[in-house]
């Protein structure tokens, strides 16, 4: 590769317009990932708790509820994100009033992440020593006290690790949000880097995404470590 082609490749990077676009895209990605992460945790956490406590031999065994929840979660997880995004457009419109744009992308991102979070939460809570739960029961703790003061605090390091994985997955999903005009770094990479053959844009976007994921992982790990006294 000669100098000429290299400068052609990196040429567009000199344009202030593109950098403006990139800053904008980064903001959009941040918004999509953080908001849908929070919403997905809000939805997935109770769902995961229900999955666990309704399981056999746990606090409130309920085979019917346990199975129905399991099926719902599995269906939610088996739909490819791009299909789900399109399929729930009427729902999205109902919630945010439009099916296009960053805000509209947050709805399918959240819907897709909830069952994912639920399963991760389930796994985390099942790791809690049953002996500790039993000890709390023996001390006269109520159902809600056991969940709030035993299950969740004991599983906290693992729950944080799970949220980190969810956040990183959401970065990947959010790249597809371009399909409904959601914007974000992934969308920028496709429109400029792929459709306009601006390989330089592609590389820079990918580098930013890699750094982004790295930061999320490092922050998540250190948070999890800080609360882990096991």
């Amino acid at each position: 590769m000669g100098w000429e082609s290299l400068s052609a490749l990196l040429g567009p990077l000199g344009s202030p317009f593109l950098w403006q676009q990139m800053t904008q895209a980064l903001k959009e990605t941040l918004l999509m990932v953080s908001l849908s992460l929070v919403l997905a945790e809000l939805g997935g956490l109770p769902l995961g708790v229900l999955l666990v406590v309704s399981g056999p031999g746990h606090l409130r065994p309920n085979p019917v509820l346990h199975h129905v929840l399991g099926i719902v979660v599995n269906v939610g997880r088996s739909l490819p994100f791009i299909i789900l995004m399109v399929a729930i457009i009427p729902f999205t419109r109902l919630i945010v009033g439009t099916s296009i744009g960053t805000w509209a992308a947050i709805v399918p991102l959240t819907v897709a992440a909830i069952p994912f979070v639920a399963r991760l939460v389930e796994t985390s809570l099942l790791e809690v020593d049953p002996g500790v739960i039993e000890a709390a029961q023996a001390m006269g703790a109520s159902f809600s006290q056991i969940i709030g003061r035993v299950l969740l605090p004991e599983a906290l390091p693992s729950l944080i690790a799970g949220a980190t994985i969810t956040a990183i997955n959401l970065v990947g999903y959010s790249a597809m949000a371009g399909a409904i005009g959601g914007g974000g770094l992934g969308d920028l990479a496709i429109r400029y880097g792929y459709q306009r053959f601006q390989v330089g844009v592609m590389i820079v976007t990918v580098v930013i995404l890699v750094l982004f994921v790295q930061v999320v992982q490092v922050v998540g790990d250190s948070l999890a470590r800080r609360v882990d006294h096991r």
Partner: protein
Amino acid sequence: MAVATQAAGILSDSREAAPLVEVEHLTKRFRQGRREIVALDDVSFAVYPGEIFGVMGLSGAGKSTLIRCINLLERPDAGRVTVAGQEMTRLTGRSLMQARRRIGMIFQHFALLSSRTVAGNVAFPLEIAGFPRPEIRRRVDELLELVGLSDRAAAYPSQLSGGQKQRVGIARALAPEPVLLLSDEATSALDPETTLSVLRLLQEINRRMGLTILMITHEMHVIREICHRVAVIDQGRLVEIGPVAQVFSRPQSEAGQRLLRAQLQEDVPADILNRPRDSSHRLFRLGFLGEVAHEPVVAEVVRTLPVMLNVLFGRIEQLGGVPWGRLVVEISGTPAAVEEARQYLKRRGVEVEEIRPVDQESAAVPSPARVEGGAA
């Protein structure tokens, strides 16, 4: 309860006080696939205020189910459990929660919250019972002082040794000032030395606060060390109950004898138990409980009968507060004289049990030399 009254009650089963724990016709079955397992079969007994009551049995005998039925962690299929006048088996929901707060429990694997500090763990039962904060702080300080862990208040359980963890467990169990302490194999995960210090702590708590303790264990020495009375459970059935000294020195049930024999084998070197014998060289285990321990019975035998008496093993220990001497002796002479010596010892109130050869399997295991097992 004063130590003196405890000691007086040791050799008699009759108590004047009303029982603190009453277990009546307790039955519990488990389904395992298609098979039904009877974990508890019509078990009845009573625990009196201020005593340390032990339940002993091999693993799988049903002791665990039994202790879990006391605070209804396991709901029995039939029978009644009453603690401090309250019929536990009738309670559900909130009233059961309230009743459980009066019963402390300690566990084999400690069951401490890893997310909380030592102080946080001790505070836990007080928090869930809604104690005010200043009171919680005061109680926690007191209890950590009691179990000797004041300096580790801010440590997490993972930073503690097993013995320290169990001390935290004990402090936590005592926090809401329970009327009864349940101990579920609390020392089984600890080394012998730590076990002893935890047992001493429980004993001190029992003496100082008069707290009634109900403990289950498969370790005979734990019962021997601190219990006043003991029940033996075998295949879900209570087969024997009585003062520790009585049950240990002359077990009536087959299971009790089996447990004792296992203990004897642990105590006495195998090569002694495997000495060759015939009708003119017989091996006996002699037990001297209380009074008879002070009389020179063995000397009398040798002086009055034409036999040789060789002491192979000897030990004196405390059984529920009563001195208990044990000897393993070989008596040799004519078959008639040996038999007469046996009868004589029996007449003098010595527990006499002939030691039969150990079966080939266990005999094949070489035993390490033991300090206390010297032959005379």
